[in-house]
C-alpha cells in the first residue's frame, strides 16, 4: 500500500566477486573525489592521475618503489590479520617496528658478532624485540585487564621517543656532525638488493613467507582455530576450555615480531642506520592496520592490499616531487581511499530497492520484529 521510493534491505552474505568489485570501485571513487583536491591545489586532475599512476606502476623503477614499500606493509599486515582474527586490536605495529629497528641497529653497530652471524642475529633479535613490545601489551591485558588498544597505541610513542633519545644521545654517530642519526652500519649488516632496484631481497622473501605462514596458522592449525574462536565468541571459547590469555599473548607475539622484522628490514635494507622514527617508518605501522583491515584479516588478501597501499605511497611520492605539493596531501588521498572502502563495507551488506510507481508516502520505522 504505502512503500517509500527508495528502500534499503539487508543482505545476508556478499559474494567474493562482489566484495572485490565494490573494493575496486571505492578506490576509483576515492580518486575521482580527490580530483577536487588537486583542482583546489591548481593541478589538473587528469594530470595528477597520470603522474600518480606513472609513479606507482609506470616504469620498472616505479614498480620497484611500490614493492619496496609493500614489503613492510605485508609483514605488518600479515601479523595484524592474525591478531584481528582473534579480536585483539594491536594498533602498536608502529612501535613494535621501531623496537625491531633499534634492536637491529644495536646488533649491527655494537654487538661485534662475526659477519656471517650479523644479519641472522639482527632479524632474530629484531623479531624478539618487536614481539616483546607486543607481549607486554598482552600481559597488561591478561593480568591487569588494560585494553590493548590503549597500551599498544601508547607504546608507539614510547618506542618513537626511545629512538629519538638514542640517535640524539648515546648512539649519535661520531661521523655525522650535527645530524641526528647513528653511524652507518658496517657493510656486512646491509641487505642485498634485488638487481638494480632498491628492494631488499631477504625481506621480500620473508614477507611472502610470513603471509603464507600466517594463512596456514589461521586455517589449518588447532592454534589458528582457537584464535578464531576467541575472536568471534569469547563466551564460547571459555566454555570450550580455550586459554584466552595464551591466545592473546601468542597473537601479540607474532604480530609484534613481524613488525619488528619490518623494522630491521627498513634499517638494514634501506637506511643502513638508525635515524628519525618518521624516516624509518613513513607510518607503516598505522597503514598496516588498514592493510589488514581491508584484506578482511585474511593474510592472502594482505598481498593485494599491501600492494595497493605501497602503490599509494610511491604514487604519492611522485605527486609530491612533480608538483611540489606537501606530502600531507597524500595522507588525504589515503584517508579518502580508506573512507570509501570502509563505507563500501557497510554497503555490501545492504541493497537499495527502488519502488515502482509514484505514490509519495513515507514509512516510519519502529524497528518491529518479524514474527
Amino acid at each position, binding site marked *: 500500500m504505502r512503500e517509500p521510493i527508495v528502500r534499503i*534491505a539487508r543482505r545476508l552474505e556478499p559474494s567474493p566477486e562482489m566484495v572485490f568489485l565494490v573494493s575496486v570501485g571505492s578506490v576509483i571513487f576515492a580518486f575521482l573525489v580527490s580530483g577536487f583536491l588537486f583542482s583546489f591545489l591548481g593541478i589538473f586532475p587528469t594530470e595528477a592521475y597520470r603522474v600518480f599512476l606513472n609513479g606507482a606502476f609506470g616504469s620498472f623503477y616505479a614498480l620497484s618503489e611500490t614493492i619496496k614499500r609493500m614489503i613492510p606493509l605485508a609483514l605488518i599486515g600479515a601479523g595484524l590479520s592474525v591478531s584481528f582474527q582473534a579480536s585483539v586490536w594491536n594498533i602498536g605495529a608502529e612501535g613494535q617496528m621501531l623496537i625491531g629497528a633499534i634492536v637491529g641497529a644495536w646488533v649491527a653497530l655494537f654487538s661485534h658478532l662475526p659477519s656471517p652471524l650479523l644479519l641472522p642475529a639482527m632479524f632474530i633479535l629484531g623479531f624478539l624485540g618487536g614481539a616483546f613490545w607486543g607481549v607486554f601489551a598482552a600481559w597488561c591485558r591478561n593480568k591487569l585487564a588494560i585494553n590493548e588498544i590503549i597500551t599498544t597505541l601508547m607504546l608507539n610513542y614510547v618506542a618513537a621517543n626511545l629512538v629519538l633519545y638514542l640517535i640524539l644521545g648515546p648512539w649519535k654517530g661520531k661521523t655525522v656532525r650535527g645530524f641526528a642519526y647513528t653511524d652507518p652500519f658496517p657493510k656486512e649488516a646491509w641487505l642485498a638488493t634485488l638487481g638494480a632496484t632498491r628492494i631488499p631481497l631477504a625481506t621480500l622473501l620473508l614477507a611472502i613467507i610470513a603471509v603464507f605462514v600466517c594463512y596456514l596458522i589461521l586455517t589449518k592449525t588447532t592454534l589458528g582455530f582457537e584464535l578464531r574462536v576467541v575472536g568471534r*565468541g569469547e*563466551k564460547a571459547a*571459555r*566454555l570450550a576450555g580455550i586459554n584466552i590469555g595464551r591466545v592473546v599473548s601468542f597473537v601479540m607475539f607474532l604480530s609484534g615480531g613481524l613488525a619488528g622484522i619490518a623494522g630491521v628490514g627498513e634499517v638494514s635494507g634501506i637506511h643502513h642506520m638508525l635515524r628519525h622514527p618518521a624516516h624509518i617508518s613513513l607510518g607503516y605501522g598505522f597503514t598496516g592496520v588498514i592493510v589488514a583491515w581491508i584484506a578482511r584479516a585474511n593474510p592472502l588478501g594482505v598481498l593485494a592490499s599491501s600492494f595497493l597501499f605501497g602503490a599509494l605511497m610511491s604514487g604519492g611520492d611522485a605527486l609530491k616531487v612533480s608538483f611540489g605539493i606537501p606530502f600531507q596531501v597524500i595522507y588525504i588521498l589515503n584517508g579518502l581511499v580508506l573512507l570509501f572502502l570502509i563505507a563500501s563495507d557497510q554497503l555490501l551488506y545492504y541493497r537499495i530497492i527502488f519502488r515502482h510507481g509514484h505514490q509519495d508516502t513515507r514509512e516510519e520505522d519502529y524497528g*518491529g520484529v518479524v*514474527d
Partner: protein
Amino acid sequence: MEKEIIIFRGITKRFPPDILANDRVSFAVEKGTIHVVLGENGAGKTTLMNILYGIHQPDEGSILLRGREVRITSPRVAIELGIGMVHQHFRLIPNHRVWENVILGFPRAPRFFPAARAREMVRNLSQEYGLDVDPDAYVWQLSAGEQQRVEILKTLLRKAEILILDEPTSVLTPSDAEKLFSVLQKMKEEGRTCLFITHKFSEVREVGDRITILRKGRVVETVAKGEADFESLATMMVGEKVSLFLEKPLVTPGEPLLQVEDLWVLDDRGFPRVQGVSLTLREGEIVGVAGVVGNGQRELAEALAGLRTPLRGRVFLKGNDLTGSSPRNVREAGLGYVPEDRRMSLIGDLTVEENLILRDYQEPLFRRGTFLDWKRVREYAENVITAYRIVPPLPRLPVRLLSGGNRQRVALAQALVSRPQVLVVANPTVGLDILATGFIHRLLLSLQEEGVGILLISGDLDEILTLSDRILVLYRGTIVGERERPKSGWTEEDRREIGMMMGGVTEEHLVVGK
C-alpha cells in the same frame, strides 16, 4: 451494537527481500471475547498485531474497526481508537517507578506534581482488576508477572477496549498465568475484547472463545472453543500430522552419576544466586529442575559446567570431586553442557563443522599433530548432519544462517561429540517450533535409554513434565520441592503443586492448604 469489533480483510505484509509475513489474512474478532491467535514462531502473529497497533502498515488489505474502515498510521492513532498492546518484551523504564511508567506519555496526566493523582489512579485501577502492584515500586524491582500487570494498567488507564497480548505467558509462573487469565475474564465480562497471541496450544484450553490458527502468514482456520482438540490444533499449526505423544522409555535408574552437595554459587553481581542446592542424578534418569527464569538456574548450570567456581559445596561425578574444575576438565570427566544462551555454545560466524568441533578440536580424531584434519572433520560433520537431519545439509554454512531448531541440533550434537555420561541442558527448546521441539525431546529420551543421566533445567513446565522422571523445583536458589514420576505418569495435581512451588509456595504450605 456491532458484534464483530475487528475485521481483518486481506491483510498482506512483505518484509523485503523475500519474507511474506502476512498473506491475505482475513478473520473477524467478536466484541467481548478472548480471541486467540495461534501459530508457530514466524507464522506472522506479531506482524499482524503490529499492524493493528499501527507499528507496521499493511501492503494490501484493510482493517475494519467497529464496522468502519480505519487507517492506523501509528500507535498513537491505535491508542485513540481504543487499542492497547502488551508487547512480549515489556516497554517499561526500569529506573522509574510504577506510577511514572503508567503515566508516561499519557495525555491527561496532571501537568504539575502528578505523583499523588497518578498513584491514586494506579491504586484504583489495580484494586478494580485485582492487578496487584505497588505504585511506588521501581520497575526493576518487579517480577516479570508484576511488570506485565503494569503494562496492562497502562492500557486500562488509556481506556483500551481492545487489548492485544503478545505471548503474555512466556515469562510467567503458572500461578501468575492463572491470575492473568482471571483478569482477562473480568475484562471480557465488562465487554472488552482481548487478542491473545500464543504458540502454546495448551493455553488455548485456559482462555480463548475463538481461535485463529496462522501458518506461514496465512489463516488456516478460525474455530470456536471446543471445536478442535490438541492434536488437530497442532496439525493445523504445523501443516502436517504431528504426534504429540512421546513414548517415555522404561528405564530403571542405575548408579548415581552426578552428586551435588550444598552448592552455593554467586551471580555476576556477587549475590549468592544458588543457595545450598543438593541433588543426585543417576544413570538413565532425567531429572527436571523446574523454576521461573532468574531463580538460579543459570548459575547452577554454569557451576556444574565449570564456568563458575562455587562459593561452597561439592560436585561429584562418578565419585570424582569436580568442584571448581575447568570447563575442559569437567567435559573430559564426562559431563556435557548445553547452555540456554546459544552464543555460549555456538559461534554464528563459524561454519557448522567448525561449531561441531568447537569443544573437542583437540581430540585425536580431528587432528594430526598441530594441524586440524579438515577432511575428517568434514566427514564427521556430514554424519552428524544426516543423523540430526540438519537443514540445509551444508557443513560449511555459517551457523547464523540456520534456523533456531537447526542451530539447537548443532548445539546438542556439539555437546555429544565427547559422548558424555551426564548431560546438563538448559531450556533446550526455547523458541523452537513443534517439530523441532519434538525432535529434541525424542533425542533426549533416546540418550536416556542409552544410560545417559540428564539434568533438564527448564522454565517450561510442560517440557519438564513430558521428560522428567523426577522433578526438583528451584525457587530463589533453593530446592523447594521434589516429586517422583508416578507409574501412571504425572497427574493434574502434580502439575498444580509444582506450578505453585515455582511461584514460591513451599511444600509445608501446600500441605496446610489441602
